[in-house]
């Protein structure tokens, strides 16, 4: 059913339809509306779940670890400093192979304090073993929750997943959403079947200690499984598109890319603005296209190499910066295209909520065509 909904509320509704049994979260801007809505659903008996209130995000995700290990479908949501506080717990959840799903309403990290959007928070946890999905709009943010649970809970994967959508830009924006019915969600997402669970009658510990003889192999296994999840993501995305019409069968998505000479690569809501800018540039006969990255972990290296094999220039938009190096997405794209010789330039954009408009995308295309890049785009030099 089509309805006009705020992004956060659409995500909360999608989570309700996934029937989580335990939710534990701590409110933080701009994620608050999601967990407020879920708390209300639990209080109103619209969702049969245990809602555990806690004193901070470390405890929130720790409670999810316990609940997931005990055999519950588990959910949390956070952003920015909240996610930073979960750093240790994120590595534990992944290492214990617990399929927790967590929404990230992407926000900048302090200091300096900023409540506005960029993607530094989830990007900074790229090495934690969580799957990372990025949504372009609220419809995708909604749908990716169904997909994330299916993939994470697959017994050949068993890894937790972030569903990332840009704070404020998506979380606080009203858009029309085609919400899947409970009946259909139940057909797509079966009841949670834990691989192993805590049971007093048959005690077991999770995430025990591994000596140097074993730890190396545990990390290898997580890497192997994360790479293996690419096939499961594509298969599950295909099934979703068969059932509901929206196609998530590919981890990357091209827009007017087939005959493009310059390709823009981006993550998240900026892809929407970029598509509009591309439409206008196409009117002026500029051969520009977009490669949208929907899944950042596992990284679809082969898909990127294939999709960009024919272009002359690549401009990567990064709403993050690995300080002292480059944007995290650019590093991946440069790796994927290393042997092709295609020049790749990085543009750090929109940090801490700086607006990025169509004119900025066009300016970046002009820069990459002149071979100028690997820069912070739009620096206000007068304040430096």
């Amino acid at each position, binding site marked *: 059913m089509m309805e006009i909904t705020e992004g956060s509320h659409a995500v909360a509704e999608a989570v309700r339809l996934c029937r989580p049994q335990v939710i534990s979260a701590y409110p933080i801007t701009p994620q608050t509306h999601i967990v407020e809505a879920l708390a209300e659903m639990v209080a109103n008996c619209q969702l049969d779940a245990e809602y555990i209130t806690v004193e901070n995000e470390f405890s929130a995700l720790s409670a999810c670890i316990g609940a997931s290990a005990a055999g519950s479908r588990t959910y949390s949501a956070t952003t920015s400093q909240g996610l930073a506080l979960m750093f240790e717990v994120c590595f534990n959840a992944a290492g*214990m192979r617990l399929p927790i799903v967590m929404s990230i309403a992407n926000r900048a990290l302090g200091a300096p304090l900023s409540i506005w959007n960029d993607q530094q928070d989830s990007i900074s946890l790229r090495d934690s073993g969580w799957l990372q999905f990025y949504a372009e709009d609220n419809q995708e943010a909604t749908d990716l929750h169904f997909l994330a649970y299916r993939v994470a809970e697959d017994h050949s994967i068993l890894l937790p997943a972030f569903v990332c959508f840009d704070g404020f830009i998506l979380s606080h924006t009203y858009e029309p959403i085609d919400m899947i019915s409970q009946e259909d969600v139940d057909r797509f997402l079966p009841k949670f079947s834990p691989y*192993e669970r805590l049971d007093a009658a048959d*005690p*077991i*510990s999770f995430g025990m200690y591994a000596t140097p003889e074993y730890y190396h192999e545990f990390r290898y296994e997580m890497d192997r499984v994360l790479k293996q999840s690419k096939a499961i993501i594509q298969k599950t995305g295909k099934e979703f598109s068969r059932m509901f019409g929206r196609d998530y069968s590919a981890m990357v998505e091209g827009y007017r890319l087939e005959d493009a000479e310059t390709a823009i690569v981006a993550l998240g809501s900026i892809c929407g603005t970029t598509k509009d800018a591309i439409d206008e540039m196409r009117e002026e006969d500029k051969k520009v296209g977009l490669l949208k990255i929907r899944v950042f972990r596992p990284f679809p290296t082969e898909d990127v190499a294939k999709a960009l094999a024919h272009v002359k220039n690549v401009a990567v938009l990064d709403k993050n910066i690995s300080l002292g190096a480059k944007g995290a997405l650019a590093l991946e794209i440069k790796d994927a295209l290393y042997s092709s010789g295609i020049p790749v330039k990085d543009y750090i954009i929109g940090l801490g909520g700086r607006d990025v408009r169509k004119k900025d995308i066009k300016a970046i295309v002009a820069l990459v065509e002149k071979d100028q890049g690997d820069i912070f785009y739009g620096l206000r030099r007068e304040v430096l």
Partner: protein
Amino acid sequence: MALAVGCRARPGKSRDNKTGSWRVFKPVFDREKCTKCGLCMTLCPEGCIHETEEEFVAPDYTYCKGCGICAEECPGEGIKMILEEK
């Protein structure tokens, strides 16, 4: 031993983990000086010092990490830490 998913384990797993391999210095107990006061058994963080059948106390070198607390605490100075060549 094959890896368990998520490093999960059933109870008793610490017995499989032979921490004795960590040892650099080995506690050597002097039977003559031992009064069986039990301080070493109480204070051993690994809990690996036990009474033996010969009415003496001795560490289980399979698990003794060689921390030296027993030697430090023994009131009769009956435990020496000896560099162990492996």
